[in-house]
């Protein structure tokens, strides 16, 4: 490829920040002492090693709480967002069993929520999976209609991991309040990227994770409201009674310290970072939409600033990525590698045909993305799309004016 003409271009380019982010060096620096000289168990009350570790966890808890405008006692550290999702859903289901057994969620949630809901159904729970509109947002009227006397929890994500669409959180929490139902949100993609305020947003429980905001992998948190109302969850991990009995297990002190530092950096830099990334994202999107038959998936107004999901009709996503995956890392809604051959369920939930879902790429920009990298990406993707369309029988048919729906395809 003849693109390497930029002075500041660092290859390979990482545009899969929705999957995970690199650790900020400042985060790593904060963590390091807690592996070696400050290695104590935060639960060791009888000596200085334990006190130092406990102090570090307390400080990190403040840093985390501050980012989302919570109280320190409302933060339960977990191994990540998946565990926090499990604890919120199963914990509420168990704790509020006498009140009801019905949970409302939506079809575009992360698997950590959907599969936990499936598990709850096996335990006798009832779950409503709300559809989403073509832009990926839920219909608030549908949500309210779904509430019954048995409803104990509404679980709707903050920002979607594939298309970046941000749900109307305040409207959802208002509906939950009105009906006396708890509101849980998986905010893994949103916290640290856009302002998330559990008070103003009316959130009762919230899952989030360090490694999506330039912190380490293996640590996350569940926010559990303590006042108005006081929310309780039944522990899903029994043992030494850590985290006020809600999550037993030795504290991951270096991870928690890193999580705290990552939250502090996000709190201070998020606003400027979001502004910078949305400019880059818009540039990327504008550049790529110069191609014919390229479409943005999901609502573009209510969207995380660093995310874009684009379908390039008549080329297949995985084949497309192969054209540049030596130099650009991103992900596709196509699932040609999986045995099922099923494309993204999120894109299908928007009503996209399988063909468009197979043709999609997900871009997740991040703290270390540069404008040179975006310029390079636009060029490389355009070149590959054009090359693959020359090779695509579907593109040829489209250009000849043949309606692809009129063809009887041999489904296998």
């Amino acid at each position: 490829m003849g693109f390497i003409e930029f002075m500041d271009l660092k290859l390979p380019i990482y545009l899969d920040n929705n999957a995970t982010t690199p650790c900020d060096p400042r985060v790593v620096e904060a963590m390091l002492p807690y592996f070696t000289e400050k290695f104590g168990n935060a639960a060791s009350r009888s000596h200085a090693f334990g006190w130092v570790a406990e102090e570090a966890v307390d400080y990190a808890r403040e840093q985390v709480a501050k980012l989302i405008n919570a109280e320190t006692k409302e933060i339960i550290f977990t191994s990540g967002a998946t565990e926090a999702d499990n604890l919120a859903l199963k914990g509420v289901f168990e704790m509020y069993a006498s009140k009801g057994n019905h949970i409302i969620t939506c079809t575009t949630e992360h698997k950590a929520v959907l599969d936990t809901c499936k598990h709850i159904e096996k335990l006798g729970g009832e779950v409503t999976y709300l559809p989403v509109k073509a832009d990926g947002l839920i219909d608030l009227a549908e949500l309210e209609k779904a509430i019954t006397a048995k409803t104990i929890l509404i679980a709707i994500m903050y920002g979607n991991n594939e298309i970046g669409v941000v749900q109307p959180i305040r409207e959802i929490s208002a509906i939950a309040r009105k009906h006396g139902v708890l509101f849980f949100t998986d905010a893994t993609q949103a916290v640290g990227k856009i302002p998330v305020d559990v008070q103003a947003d009316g959130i009762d429980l919230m899952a989030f994770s360090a490694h999506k905001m330039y912190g380490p992998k293996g640590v996350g948190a569940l926010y559990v409201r303590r006042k108005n109302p006081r929310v309780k969850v039944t522990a899903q991990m029994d043992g030494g009674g850590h985290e006020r009995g809600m999550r037993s297990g030795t504290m991951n002190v270096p991870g928690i310290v890193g999580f705290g530092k990552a939250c502090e950096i996000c709190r201070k830099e998020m606003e400027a970072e979001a502004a910078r990334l949305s400019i880059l994202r818009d540039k990327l999107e504008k550049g790529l939409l110069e191609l014919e038959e390229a479409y943005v998936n999901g609502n573009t107004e209510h969207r995380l600033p660093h995310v874009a999901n684009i379908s390039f009709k008549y080329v297949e996503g995985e084949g497309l990525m192969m054209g540049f995956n030596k130099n650009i890392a991103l992900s596709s809604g196509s699932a040609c590698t999986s045995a099922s051959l099923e494309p993204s369920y999120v894109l299908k939930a928007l009503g996209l045909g399988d063909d468009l879902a197979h043709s999609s790429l997900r871009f997740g920009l991040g703290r270390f993305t540069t404008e040179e990298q975006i310029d390079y990406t636009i060029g490389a993707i355009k070149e590959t799309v054009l090359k693959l369309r020359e090779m695509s029988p579907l593109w040829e048919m489209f250009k000849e004016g043949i309606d692809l729906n009129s063809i009887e395809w041999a489904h296998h």
Partner: protein
Amino acid sequence: MAYSEKVIDHYQHPKNVGTLDKAKKNVGTGLVGAPECGDVMRLQIEVDEESGIISDAKFKTFGCGSAIASSSLATEWLKGKTVDQALAIDNMDIVEELNLPPVKIHCSVLAEDAIKAAINDYRVKNGLAELELEEKKH
């Protein structure tokens, strides 16, 4: 998942991309797969009427790198073979040549189906009976 060097080579330098005139009597066209499945292959052969040898083969494929490589390889193998010889091409030959992993075997099956569909189209155009094809699992 890493691709084999041969798959990458076919992807970067595909052989015989293009379109033959499907109106010609000695051109057979096979179109297999479906957009919904993420793979569509169109494979065409042109048969020399005197010798019965496949003188040209072209493809266009919508799909992943392995699907593109499988069809590119198929066109290379088809050229110079008689139609009967072409029928003997087995998808596992493609798997072996391209070192396809198990999740990509369906790409080779699709290529074999495309070859057979093109041959059948040629046969029907030339007054020959359509061949019964065994169903392979995709």
